[in-house]
């Protein structure tokens, strides 16, 4: 951008995160850092210690009598509707009235003068209930005849039956894929301040302020216009704060109105992890038919998910698993079904990828199965099945893949990572190494961008220019570390051609932009960047008119450039120009809006174009395992990822690296483990192990496909980046699988479930050595 040399922080530049200085100095305020008003109270949840029961009574007299306690909240204290289900299914009470549905379910809240007092009091409740048998996982739920929590989905194209009859090869298999806790470093928190009339202001850490606002109004029984929800920043979200904050907002708001005092609620880490939802675990059954060269002819896939006790977002999550069960591969005949099972566990929710990763890993496992069955390098099987070529571009949901760049992207990575040569070296190494074994895998990802709930694909923004020329930027997206605010500010800086420092990024609030969508589905910049640009364009149009009228120049002679505005031969510093516009009574504020074009989806038919475009990427990982213990290390990873024309390569690379490591964690050391009573026993970092610095690949080469441009008219031809690179972590899993397979001469695809903990790796090695 030659024009931009003297403008700081415009689009397509490596701008630091807008809060970076505040982050490193400890001056970035999170919700728990906001100074409390006089008389503020603290709430804490009392939870169940059984997984499934009929609730008979809750005796809270000892709780009420505990030191420092102001009062308690139960279902009876909900003034409006006792429901916070995000999809309106009315299956998720704030507090239950007749049934306990999972171990750790919030049953009541205690409100006290201090958080410590509230925590201690919450343990004093006497819960009387009749315990019922429970089902914790989707298979147990199916066996016990549990219902679906939401309507399942079927995607079908072609006819699988004849293909299964005629195909030369057929494999049936099952894979279990574990869930994942978000383990955002900042846990859930909400802080409500009562106002006059029905008003309440809630500061919280949610990805979805509008939903929190609507839920608070719903449980209070007041109109949405009485509730303001504010989010300055989150200490991580990853989907875990899309719908899960509703409970905490509701409790804080109800208590704040009831006692007319500010109320803060912050669960401890154990309660955060036991009482809020996670990534869905899946059990995937596949039946695949393929020809001699490993080309898939038909696939029948069944995806059973541990949804927990309520629907929450399980419908769209399990839908997205099916949408991504093809990953990068064309299935000529296909049938995919989802089974969103009710279980006696916490209700699972959004998590980076939103079901997509579970679909993609199924596709990759199927490819691996075919590769071992046909004795080929799995990369060759992958390539043989890529979308592309005559009649091979239709997805199972009947959307045509128009923007596929995987042939080029994968070839480039294959070369830069020296995949073929290293694979040969690894096979040679393994032949001479009795204990340590290596593996390598190169896996692609194709990820659909757009909310599958079409109406979510809208956004608003509000831009003011004050008469000193300073710019106030607000939009409906929330900042959880991804750099959304920075990117949107860069877009505004670029459009006005002013230094980014002139732009003040402000907290997300339902007062400024209404009816926003969750900052989710990787869509934050696509939607809010466009909405902000729309607002800028409106103001600019007025400013151009003003200049045309004032200085008698043609519209195209009014140019914003390098912190100046040119009106023909006249040149004004930006702030001086704004001052003049203000004096001439030009409106210097605009609300922008955007809705994603082209998309539509008919769920009943299983047909449409749910995605505006696809993002692509590929990863090559090499691992070494110890066949005595199952321990392993990731020796090297090379990533090549497509973000279209990057708005901020530094931030985008950060997203790609971070997503990869998080995806690797999901498939390696992060294990959710419930005991027989239904209690989650991995519920804090002491027991739930996310990757550490020393777990990242020993050699880590990360590149963006800088030649890629979005074919669609997205913001500056960029692409979404939040979720797609998460699935690059699958390369580590498949590399582990190869290392395991080496102990039996690569003839059998190992039975390896996720997460591939050292234990699972060792047991897979042992099974293969024993011939199983």
């Amino acid at each position, binding site marked *: 951008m030659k024009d931009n040399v003297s403008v700081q922080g415009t689009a397509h530049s490596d701008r630091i995160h807008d809060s970076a200085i505040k982050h490193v100095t400890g001056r970035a305020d999170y919700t*728990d*850092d906001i100074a409390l008003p006089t008389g503020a109270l603290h709430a804490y949840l009392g939870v169940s210690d059984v997984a499934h029961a009929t609730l008979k009574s809750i005796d809270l007299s000892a709780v009420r009598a505990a030191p420092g306690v102001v009062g308690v909240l139960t279902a009876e204290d909900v003034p409006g509707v006792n429901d916070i289900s995000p999809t309106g299914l009315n299956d998720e009470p704030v507090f239950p009235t007749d049934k306990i549905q999972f171990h750790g379910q919030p049953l009541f809240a205690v409100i006290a003068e201090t958080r410590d007092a509230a925590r201690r009091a919450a343990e004093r409740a006497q819960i009387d209930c009749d315990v019922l048998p429970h089902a914790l996982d989707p298979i147990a739920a199916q066996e016990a005849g549990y219902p679906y929590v939401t309507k399942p989905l079927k995607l079908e194209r072609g006819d699988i039956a004849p293909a299964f009859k005629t195909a030369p090869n057929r494999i049936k298999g099952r894979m279990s894929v574990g869930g994942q806790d978000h383990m955002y470093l900042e846990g859930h928190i909400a802080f409500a301040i009562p106002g006059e009339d029905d008003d309440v202001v809630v500061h919280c850490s949610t990805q979805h302020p509008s939903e929190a606002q609507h839920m608070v109004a719903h449980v209070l029984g007041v109109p949405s216009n009485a509730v303001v929800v504010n989010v300055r920043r989150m200490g991580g979200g990853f989907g875990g704060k899309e719908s899960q904050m509703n409970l905490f907002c509701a409790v804080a708001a109800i208590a704040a109105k009831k006692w007319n005092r500010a109320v803060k609620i912050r669960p401890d880490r154990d309660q955060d992890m036991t009482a809020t939802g996670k990534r869905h675990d899946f059990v995937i059954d596949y039946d695949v038919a393929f020809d001699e060269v490993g080309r898939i002819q038909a696939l029948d896939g069944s995806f059973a998910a541990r949804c927990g006790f309520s629907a929450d977002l399980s419908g769209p999550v399990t839908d997205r698993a099916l949408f991504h069960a093809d990953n990068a591969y064309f299935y000529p005949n296909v049938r995919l079904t989802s089974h969103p099972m009710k279980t006696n566990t916490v209700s699972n929710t959004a998590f980076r990828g939103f079901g997509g990763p579970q679909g993609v890993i199924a596709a990759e496992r199927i490819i691996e199965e075919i590769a071992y069955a046909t004795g080929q390098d799995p990369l060759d099987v992958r390539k043989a099945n890529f979308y592309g070529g005559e009649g091979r571009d239709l997805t199972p949901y009947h959307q045509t893949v128009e923007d596929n760049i995987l042939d080029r992207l994968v070839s480039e990575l294959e070369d830069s990572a020296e995949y073929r040569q290293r694979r040969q070296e690894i096979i040679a190494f393994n032949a001479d190494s009795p204990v340590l074994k290596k593996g390598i895998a190169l896996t692609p990802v194709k990820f659909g961008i757009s909310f599958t709930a079409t109406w979510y694909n809208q956004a608003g923004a509000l831009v003011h220019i004050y008469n000193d020329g300073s710019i106030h930027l607000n939009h409906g997206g929330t900042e959880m570390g991804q750099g959304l605010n920075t990117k949107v500010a860069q877009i505004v800086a670029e459009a006005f051609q002013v230094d980014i420092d002139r732009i003040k990024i402000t907290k997300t609030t339902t007062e400024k932009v209404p009816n926003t969508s969750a900052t989710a589905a990787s869509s934050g910049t696509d939607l809010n960047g466009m909405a902000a640009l729309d607002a800028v364009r409106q103001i600019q149009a007025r400013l151009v008119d003003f200049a045309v009228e004032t200085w008698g120049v043609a519209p195209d002679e009014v140019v914003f450039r390098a912190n100046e505005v040119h009106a023909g031969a006249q040149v004004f510093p930006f702030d001086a120009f704004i001052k003049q516009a203000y004096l001439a009574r030009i409106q210097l504020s605009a609300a922008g809006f955007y809705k994603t074009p082209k998309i539509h989806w008919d769920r009943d038919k299983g047909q449409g174009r749910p995605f505006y475009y696809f993002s692509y990427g590929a990863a090559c990982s090499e691992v070494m395992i110890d066949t005595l213990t199952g321990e392993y290390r990731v020796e090297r990873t090379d990533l090549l990822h497509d973000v279209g024309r990057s708005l901020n390569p530094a931030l985008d690379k950060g997203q790609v690296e971070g997503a990869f490591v998080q995806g690797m964690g999901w498939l390696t050391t992060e294990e959710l483990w419930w005991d027989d009573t239904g209690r989650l026993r991995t519920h804090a970092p002491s027991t739930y192990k996310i990757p550490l610095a020393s777990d990242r690949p020993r050699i880590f080469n990360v590149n963006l496909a800088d030649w890629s441009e979005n074919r669609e008219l997205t913001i500056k031809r960029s692409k979404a980046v939040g979720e797609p690179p998460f699935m690059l972590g699958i390369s580590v899993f498949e590399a582990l699988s190869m290392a395991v397979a080496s102990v039996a001469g690569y003839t059998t695809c190992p039975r390896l479930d996720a997460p591939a903990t050292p234990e699972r790796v060792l047991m897979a090695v042992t099974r293969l050595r024993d011939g199983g």
Partner: protein
Amino acid sequence: MAHRSEIRFVLNGRDVSINDVGASQTLLDYLRLERRLTGTKEGCAEGDCGACTVLVGRLTYTGLTYAPVNACIRFLASVDGCHVVTVEYLSGPDGRLHPVQQAMIDHHGSQCGFCTPGFVMSLYALWMETPEPSEAQVETALQGNLCRCTGYEPIIRAAVAVSRYGSPASDHLNTERATVTTHLQALQDGKRVVSGPQNNLSILPADVDDFAECLLSHPDATIVAGATDVGLWVTKFLRSIGPAIFIGHLNDLKQVETQGNDLLIGAGASYTDCQDALSRHLPHLSAYWDRIAGWQVRNMGTVGGNIANGSPIGDTPPVLIALGAEITLRRGADRRTLPLEAFFVDYGKQDRQSGEFVETIRIPLPEPNQHHAAYKISKRRDEDISSVAVGINVSVTDGVITTCRLAFGGMAATPKRAAAAEQALVGQIWSEAAFDQAAAALPQDFSPLSDWRASSDYRMLSAQNLLRRFFLEHDAATAAPIQLASA
């Protein structure tokens, strides 16, 4: 003994004196709630995520030493006589960003930013100790810091670049070192500190003899050394720990020295305090030691506490038992010494009498004919609790195994020697077959539990395989590498 009732320390260069500090009051809550130093975050309240990392400087035999610790499980009373440094103090009086902060910014080391102050503090401590660290040193320093956003890569890049932004010599913790030292010396009045309400009493003895006396008069007191376990009793289980006797400040309980053919470790020596001596005298423990918790916990936690606490999954007992360590227990002026394995009676039960405490650990140094190893299996390599830990000590004379000690953690209700497996080895010729037999005997010694860390089958299989690993590692005929390189 003269008493004092207020806790006195220096916070970010300023004197603090507080009355009535209860035993269970944490440093983190004090910083955040009473001082509104909100840069220090609560991420887990169990010393596992590092978001609450602060530096604590204290006077040791070698002078003023700063170390990163977890403020969430550090008790306020225990910082008596220390200099507590939070992220707010980093930029110094002129307000300019600190080299660590600038490096983090320039390398895009923060995303959501919540873990960032903790990382900054750990990297600050690393830079002062090792201004130009290797990536491996950075990783070791960051074992106690979790980041969920970045994947760590930019943080590592920042960490190795910090020295380009400035030298520790000009850092104000160094330029003010003499002043702070004088200040802290003035706070050392040799008095016993007794603070807090009667039901939550904090007691800081003046020295070890005073500790023995305090414990006699409060035999039910909770002894708090590093608080890396007791801290969780309070933050997670809301247990009352008063009266508590804090001993982390007792320099006369922290000696680490050789005496003849033994290494003597005071029960109050932290893991970090032991590291140098271990590298010198017990090199097989060096890498193992780096896998005990994270840096912050190693700076607080003590070997004595790891033993006294009696956990079946503590990292140090198996390797110390294998070495033939003895411990000395003291009650008042009386002392008795017993083999470490005899201390562990049963699950949750140790051979410690009322009013008695672990005073020293004596480790016989290896002899030339002994082969030693220490192995730990965990779900995540670093900062994880072991599924299985083992210390192995095998003496070989003329190709025959003459004695051996195999001690396991995670396999039984206590850290325990594998008697049958040992018996299978003694008298055998050093050979793979002998170790296969020992592995085959192991099920006679143990019936391990299944839990979230590992299944019973995995514990047994990996424990057996660790015996095979030991053989391969120490056998001259082994050609290919058999263990993953450490970080």
